[in-house]
């Protein structure tokens, strides 16, 4: 207990030393601004595929309606209208667009023919692509889902008029019967493993914003790694020789903690402002665990690398590995043995799955045990 005030003093002094560097403060301050910029940019139209929509006849009402629906609906596909068929095909050929959907002239008539089994030779839509991919096949399911309400009503109308009704039935009456059933809404609902979790605001379901939490978590870890560089530099400069007992056994942890805590505070602020926020309790607890994990991980890596050059070389490769193996952009399966070495893996999984916290705690225990063994007196990594 008697070491606590000394620990706080060290923490305060180290923090003061760090925050006296304006460039450090400016860079940390840039984080929320850059994230806000990304949020603004993500509002623009974007998609994994760019599909051009084209009408054979600009006056056709149904194709106009379908195109408007496609343009207005939120989707991971980016749609835009193109007046000229030839120009649209050229866009695809040159790689500026992925596909063109050309709606035939008299689409309503085509739907009626198709659903009455009168004539099925004529396709309703011409799809022009460079090559067929799984993404483009999925995109065509979207096309089908937009055409489906019209096809469904067409089938209903034709079946009743041609097969069931004994006298002529008006379209208004049929439309009223069709809409009377009032079955609405999706039969699917999304939930996290922790069912009480609220959705992540604007970032929810947006692939452009989805990696934000992961990237900011890597930033916190990077601050710990840079603190390791700084620590090694100070040690090589003989700065710690002036401290009584080299600052004590906890000194390296405190040293790392200053940079990690500063970054964590900025990252939490960013989460809060941009609403990538779940709850105070969860965010603070997980960030605290993550900070402890980052400190242990960075200190262990510093001991293993021994020199500042090796440590500096490890950083980009580690960051690249974590970006790929931790669930920042994608969740890779089958690499648990490698993934479980990185603190960001536990943090990112525990965000929506509190059951992962127990693995996080086990990881911390193992990490600090290894750190202790590596740093024990007589070990070649002790210094």
């Amino acid at each position, binding site marked *: 207990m008697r070491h606590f005030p000394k620990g706080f003093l060290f923490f305060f002094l180290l923090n003061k030393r*760090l925050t006296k560097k304006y460039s*450090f403060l400016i*860079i940390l301050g840039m984080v929320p601004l850059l994230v806000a910029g*990304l949020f603004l*940019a*993500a509002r*623009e*139209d*974007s998609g994994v595929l760019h599909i051009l929509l084209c009408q054979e006849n600009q006056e056709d009402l149904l194709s106009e309606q379908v195109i408007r629906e496609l343009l207005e609906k939120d*989707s*991971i596909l980016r749609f835009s209208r193109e007046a000229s068929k030839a120009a649209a095909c050229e866009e*695809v050929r040159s*790689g500026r667009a992925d596909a063109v959907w050309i709606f035939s002239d008299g689409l309503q008539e085509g739907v009626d023919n198709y*659903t009455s089994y009168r004539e099925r030779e004529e396709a*309703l839509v*011409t799809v022009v692509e*460079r090559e*067929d991919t799984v993404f483009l*096949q*999925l995109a*065509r*399911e979207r096309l089908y*889902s937009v055409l*489906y*309400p019209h096809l*469904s009503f067409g*089938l*209903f109308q034709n*079946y009743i008029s041609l097969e*069931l*009704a*004994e006298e002529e039935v008006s379209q208004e009456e*049929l439309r009223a019967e069709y809409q009377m059933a009032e079955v609405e809404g999706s*039969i*699917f*609902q*999304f*939930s996290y*493993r922790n069912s009480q979790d609220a959705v992540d605001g604007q970032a929810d*379901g947006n*692939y*452009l914003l*989805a*990696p934000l939490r992961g990237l900011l978590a890597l930033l916190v870890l990077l601050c710990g*790694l*840079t603190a390791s*560089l*700084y620590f090694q530099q100070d040690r090589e400069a003989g700065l710690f020789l002036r401290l009584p007992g080299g600052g004590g056994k906890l000194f390296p942890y405190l040293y790392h903690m200053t940079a990690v805590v500063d970054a964590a505070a900025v990252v939490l602020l960013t989460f809060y402002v941009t609403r990538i926020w779940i709850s105070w309790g969860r965010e603070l607890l997980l960030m605290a665990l993550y900070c402890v994990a980052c400190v242990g991980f960075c200190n262990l890596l510093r001991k293993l690398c021994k020199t500042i050059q090796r440590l*500096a*070389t490890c*950083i*980009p*490769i580690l960051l*690249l*590995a974590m970006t790929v193996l931790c*669930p920042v*952009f*994608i*969740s890779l399966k089958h690499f648990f043995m490698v993934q479980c070495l990185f603190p960001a893996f536990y943090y990112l999984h525990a965000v929506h799955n509190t059951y*992962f916290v127990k693995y996080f705690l086990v990881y911390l225990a193992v990490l600090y045990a290894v750190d202790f063994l590596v740093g024990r007196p007589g070990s070649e990594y002790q210094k």
Partner: protein
Amino acid sequence: MENFGKYFRVQIKRAAKSLPAVLFPALLLMGIAVLLGRMIWSISEGSADKQKVQIALVGDLSDPYLKLGMYALENLDSIHFTVEFLPMAEEEAQRELDLGRITAYARIPEGLVESIMWGENKKVTYVTSGNSGEMVSVLIRELMETVSTLLVESQNSVYGMQRFLENHGLEDRMWEATEEINLRYFDLFLNRTELYKMEFTGISNELSLPGYYLCAMMVLFLMLWGIAACPLFVKGDLAFQKLLRARGQSLWAQVMGEYAACLFLMLASFLIIGGILLAGIRYLQVPIPEWEGASQEEQLVFLLQAVPVAALMAAFQMLLFELVSGIVSGVLLQFISTVCLGYVSGCFYPVSFLPEGMRRASAFLPSGISIRYLDGCMLGNGGSPGELLWIILSLLLFLGLTILVRGRRLRAA
């Protein structure tokens, strides 16, 4: 000029001295990365099933119609190769989800089919532990919306027809008509490909995804390399540079000497690691369509064509080193600029996935210019002269800015 020569030699010596220390762990980690790549490759080659997104189904799966529906869904052309449904108990699904062995599970409520028959749809819950914006989740969500539309519209039609029969005193035809209209809906669903006619324009002169990502990863590596070089090039104070200035060493000579050392170190790391990477790609037989049938020499030429990109990145990093006065700030600035530029330029998501504004911005960023130039090199046209000119202009701009910043810092010191 004599001073410049001396300073240049000293800087090169300094860089060369730290090269082994920088390279050894990098080579070690690169070796691990190649082995990891080999592992990924053997897994993906070993079984097509292992590439699939695995979704567990839990709850009441006893209904034969539900089984039929799931079978139909699993065998849709568009998801046949991407999604696999695995029936299991909820506890097991939760455990598998926790261990990351499945992507998600869908909880089917009891009496789902009856509820659909009565038009009071109970909801199927899609449970995931990951980020809802992750690409797989977004695709599944898109697909579920489609399935939902099909189901709800078909229900409207069947109930509408039944109401029509009731209103017109045709109840006796109810069962026969319901069966018939359901069959028509099955027919509509199964023959949906007849709705559109496919036309193919053929492959354009653009990169395949593996080719694109190889170029993007090379640029990302060069940008991340700046983090490793921070301890060597970020200067806490400029006392030595001030002394050199007083002794007649111009700003230009100082910056160019340091730039030469930075470029030397970067090129050495890049060419050695790039060489290993190319050997790894050949060893793993990674299918990069642009390199089908290409000889080792042709691949080496591609690596050498990337030298202007390395030169540009070294100049950009010199500017970043000059903007900060400590390692912590230096590393942070390098990381933030790498992530931001990499993101906007298409190192993570292909640039075509990004909004128009970002795509326009990427055309002026060093990373965007570099990716475009490398794309051209990979396609075999050696990079267009226009891109090369952009690279040279940007390089000169960054070096000029570095000299300006150095001058300001020296005056302030």
